[in-house]
């Protein structure tokens, strides 16, 4: 246990070092400001002592004072305070900037990795985890940075104070040498007792939140089965546990706070007791006694800053440990040197003995799939759930790379093509349409060089022109987070328009038309195939109306392309195909 604690301390120090190395300039500035603050805190006590000694006591003893002495005293007090204020401002601003810069920098790095890493990496990590890596984990990794310079400044202050104490009076210094370490040790003990309790409270908060999320999501079920009481009881159990957890946290803090206050106070009293004797002996004077006593009341807060940093380190390490795997993850999709053929019209697609297995999966998703889609043709990929259709669709546009074999575009292996070539030639529309929190126009163009006429033409093809022109700002309407302000069907149509506007040479639709009318679907394909140089289309489909649009059908079963032919041929030849198509026909949904 204690060795583990040592490890945390060592790793914590390394983590502090990392923060300093990342932002050396800001840290230096903040540290200088904190040191100034620390020095001025000590100085303000010294000034009070000097003023007592040189102005107050003589005046009271002699019954006279001079205007210059009083002015000097006032100026000294205000001058030190102004420098102290400069110190505080610098410390707060620079430390804040340092902490915020680290946060921003690591968010950029983490999201940079999200964008760089291949889709296969994404598939292995739950969405919620990735989101919290970039948000709360980054935040907690660098939260301790804000009080860090303050804490370092406190160390400076303690050093100055100790020297000053020894110089003033060695006996009074002893009091300081007892009280400062005591405050320090109390802080360490506090953070160690506190951190497991804080973690538990945090955990319970998450559980309470999970229940609330689930329960409100299930609102309809809860209501219609009359289970409000049961749900409330379930929630209350966790809420009460959280209450107990928070009270346990409060108990520790409730003890620590008055202790931290009492220790310097007792120190001051000890200084008075010992100091009075020393003054009586003539070893020191009243002014020095006052300044040392005053110092004790000022030092308590900065010393606590050390505690804040220490207390936060375990949380920071935990956050950083969760972020590190993302930053260190490798597996960027490598690109080749070749350009795509770029001839107008449809691209020829070929799969050569393609196999694919998800990492860590026992069974491959696809085995030895080989087929050609000649330029300009439309092929439907049909198969039961779990047969590997979506994986196949992703392979065609290089969302993932095959584990075996190769996918060829115009005879060139996708992996040999330069970055941006595949997305320049092929468009892909996924099952669930993804929209950016942006305008309708930008969601269609994605920054590409398309004019409003192109956009409207694409929207017309996707049968989205009607609802878009009814939107309050037309093309400039923002669609909200993930297109929240639109219906599922509308989102799908915009995603289709996004593909259409590019006039791709290869279009891959992964069950992307489930929410649009078959007539619209036909119109989209017609528009793409209608020219002299028609687009090649691969469509993963369920409904017969879609399948009917294809020149040919590839029948996928258990990751193998078992049959290929026209719809009618397969109906006659492949019993599984016939059964599936009929079953969907039975279960059909109106458009």
């Amino acid at each position, binding site marked *: 246990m204690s060795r583990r604690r040592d490890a945390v301390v060592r790793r914590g120090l390394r983590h502090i070092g990392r923060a300093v190395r990342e932002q050396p300039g800001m840290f230096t500035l903040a540290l200088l400001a904190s040191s100034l603050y620390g020095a001025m805190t000590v100085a303000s006590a010294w000034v009070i002592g000097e003023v007592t000694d040189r*102005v107050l006591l003589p*005046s*009271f003893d002699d019954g006279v004072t001079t205007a210059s002495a*009083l002015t000097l005293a*006032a100026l000294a*007090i205000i001058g030190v*305070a102004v420098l102290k204020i400069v110190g*505080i*401002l610098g410390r*707060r601003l620079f430390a*804040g900037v340092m902490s915020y810069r680290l946060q921003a920098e690591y*968010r950029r790095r983490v*999201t*940079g990795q999200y964008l760089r890493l291949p*889709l296969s990496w994404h598939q292995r990590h739950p969405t919620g985890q990735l989101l919290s890596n*970039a948000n709360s984990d980054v935040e907690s990794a660098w939260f301790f940075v804000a009080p860090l310079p303050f804490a370092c400044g406190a160390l400076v202050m303690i050093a100055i104070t100790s020297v000053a104490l020894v110089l003033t009076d060695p006996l009074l210094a002893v009091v300081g040498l007892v009280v400062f370490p005591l405050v320090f040790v109390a802080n360490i003990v506090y953070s160690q007792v506190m951190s497991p309790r804080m973690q538990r409270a945090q955990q319970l*908060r998450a559980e*309470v939140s999970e229940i*609330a999320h689930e329960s*409100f*999501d299930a*609102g309809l079920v809860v209501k*219609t*089965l009359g*289970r409000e009481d049961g*749900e*409330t009881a379930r929630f209350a159990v966790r*809420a*009460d546990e959280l209450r107990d957890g928070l*009270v346990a946290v*409060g108990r520790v803090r*409730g003890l620590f*706070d*008055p202790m931290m206050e009492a220790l310097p*106070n007792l120190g001051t009293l000890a200084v*008075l007791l010992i100091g009075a004797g020393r*003054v009586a002996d003539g070893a020191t004077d009243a002014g020095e006694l006052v300044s040392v006593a005053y110092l004790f*009341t000022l030092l308590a807060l900065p010393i606590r800053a050390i505690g804040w940093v220490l207390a936060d380190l375990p949380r920071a390490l935990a956050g950083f440990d969760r972020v590190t795997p993302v930053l260190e993850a490798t597996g960027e999709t490598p690109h080749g040197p070749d350009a795509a053929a770029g001839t107008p019209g449809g691209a020829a697609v070929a799969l050569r003995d393609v196999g694919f297995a998800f990492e860590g999966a026992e069974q491959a998703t696809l085995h030895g799939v080989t087929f050609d889609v000649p330029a300009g043709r439309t092929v439907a990929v049909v198969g*039961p759930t779990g047969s590997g259709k979506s994986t196949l669709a992703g392979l065609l*546009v290089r969302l993932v790379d095959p584990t075996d074999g190769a996918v060829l575009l115009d005879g060139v292996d996708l992996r040999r093509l330069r*970055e941006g070539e595949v*997305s*320049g030639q*092929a468009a892909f529309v*996924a099952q669930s349409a993804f929209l950016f929190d942006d305008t309708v126009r930008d969601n269609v163009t*994605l920054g590409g060089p398309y004019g409003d006429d192109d956009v409207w033409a694409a929207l017309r093809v996707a049968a989205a022109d009607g609802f878009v022109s009814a939107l309050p700002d037309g093309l400039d309407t923002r669609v909200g*987070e993930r297109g929240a302000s639109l219906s599922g069907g509308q989102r799908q149509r915009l995603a289709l328009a996004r593909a259409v506007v590019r006039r791709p040479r290869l279009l891959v639709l992964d069950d992307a038309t*489930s929410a649009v009318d078959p*007539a619209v679907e036909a119109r989209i394909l*017609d528009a793409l195939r209608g020219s002299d140089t028609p687009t090649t289309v691969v469509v993963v489909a*369920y409904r017969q*109306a879609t399948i*009917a*649009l294809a020149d040919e059908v590839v029948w996928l079963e258990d990751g193998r392309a078992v049959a290929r032919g026209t719809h009618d041929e397969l109906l006659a030849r492949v019993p599984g195909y016939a059964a599936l198509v009929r079953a*969907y*026909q*039975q279960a059909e*949904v*109106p*458009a």
Partner: protein
Amino acid sequence: MTGGLSATAARTEGSLATLRRGLRMMPEFRRGLPATFALALLATTGRVVVPISVQQVIDRGLGAPGGPDLDLVRTVVLLSAVVVVVTAVAVYRMNVRLFRTTETALANLRVRAFRHVHDLSMLHQQGERRGSLVSRVTSDVDQLSVFMQWGGVLGLVSVGQLLVATVVMAVYSWQLTLLVLVCFVPLAIAVRAFARRLVVVYGVVRTRVGDVLAAVAESVVGAPTVRAYGVRARTAARIDAAIARHYRAQVDAQKVTAAVFVSGEFVAALANAAVVVVGVLLGLAGDITAGTLVAFLFLVTLFVAPVQTASEVLNEAQNAVAGFRRVLDVLDTEPDVRDPAVATPDRARQLPDGPLGVRFEHVAFRYAPGARPALDGVDLTIEPRRRVAVVGETGSGKTTFAKLVTRLMDPTGGRVLLGSDAGGWVPLTDVAFASLRSRVVMVPQDGFLFDASVAENVRYGRPGMTDDEVAAAFDELGLRGWVEGLPAGVATPVGQRGESLSAGERQLVAVARAYVADPHLLVLDEATSAVDPATEQRLTRALDTLTAGRTTLTIAHRLSTAERADEVLVVDAGHVVQRGPHAELVDAEGPYARLHASWRRSSAGEPEPAGLTP
């Protein structure tokens, strides 16, 4: 839609008014308050004891007429030490009391708000974004709790300290006290202005955090789209811009906070300087002693600290009060569908025994005043044990139908009754929820599952069932084969929202859940998602068993469902336009025939612009 619950309540309500409203709702909190205040007062006396002993030691110990009086010094120090220790204990007791009462009060508030959200009608639940409802019972309450643990205690002690320091200062010298107070007047005014500024800048920070969250989510959720369209650089630029805006907002907020903090420091220095100058002059006039003056300097720091603390706590306090207000607003929202057993106990009735029918009398419904009616002038009776399919285009009002029968909403005109000619008809608004929910069950479109085992999820329909009984229920529904195929049978965990199961399998569990609830009236909102054929077959069989002998109202999206029903109700633009068995309607001229033709087309592979088929 954006308004929801929070916008309706008075935005202008002051913080004090919110606190008063909150305290009324949390009697637990008020109960221990006087004792806690007494402890807080005691706690602050410990703080003035040090300056007092400094004064005593200097004036009466060191400055004693016959040379330093060390005995007196010892006595003073010892007494003070005792007071310091007693104070520490008092503070500890006060803290624990405060934490316990506030946490208890907040836990109860949390639970009450949770319950209240469930009591609100579907309309409210949908109007408010779900995430924001969750935050009412989580982060909003958490914020209060964090505030109470940090700021609340600090604030309480600070107020006491301010009072005690002022009193002690006044005892030492009323002139100097007046001087200090004068120095702090401008600060008090400045802090108020700063407080408003703080609210603004931290509001901006919060908005920016939300933007960053949304932008980051795009890089994760939109990963396939980003790759397929090669828009990595563009997406990165969007995220970086959001991060940069958040950073700038944070720095701005930090500037204001720092300014608030140092203004206190500056005023304290001014006060100290003024005290020295005026104090010496007063001393020369013989009004105060040297010890008093030194003690006064200590007292000024005691006076400054609470003011600085207040500026630190202020932002937290504003957030906490805003969170508090949001929670209270939820609690103050009257549920518009209320359980008569609670609202009007003397009118509450039970449903008659036996099979239930449904009767609509001139029923109308609008989602908002002035909106197009979703249903209008609907009059009909569904006899007990009939299986009725409700069909219509999207937006025709067929889902509204289901919500009214299950009293998820009340009609805006007319009334809905349940019962039978034999047992009598009871207006839905008079039926006690306990009776209603046990007899009328709805299977929603998305048969939501909880993150628990299959058995747990089924038990949700009838608490207290054993696993064997659950297995038997699956057996009766013809789903034994399916259950046996699961890794751990009925004990198989379904994952979050049931995501370990396929959409079709989730529906199987939802059907079983409704089956064990054994209702007399079933309302099925059919799922629209495609289901694989094997599951589809199971589902059809299970639904047949479920609906056997029960009055069933199905919001149908599928042709097959309408074909199998005893009767079809065709809804169009809020009116029931056709009614009768499928066989009759399909041949008759009318909306149903058209709907049916469109269904046929989409499933038969005859897309409209003909000639595209190979």
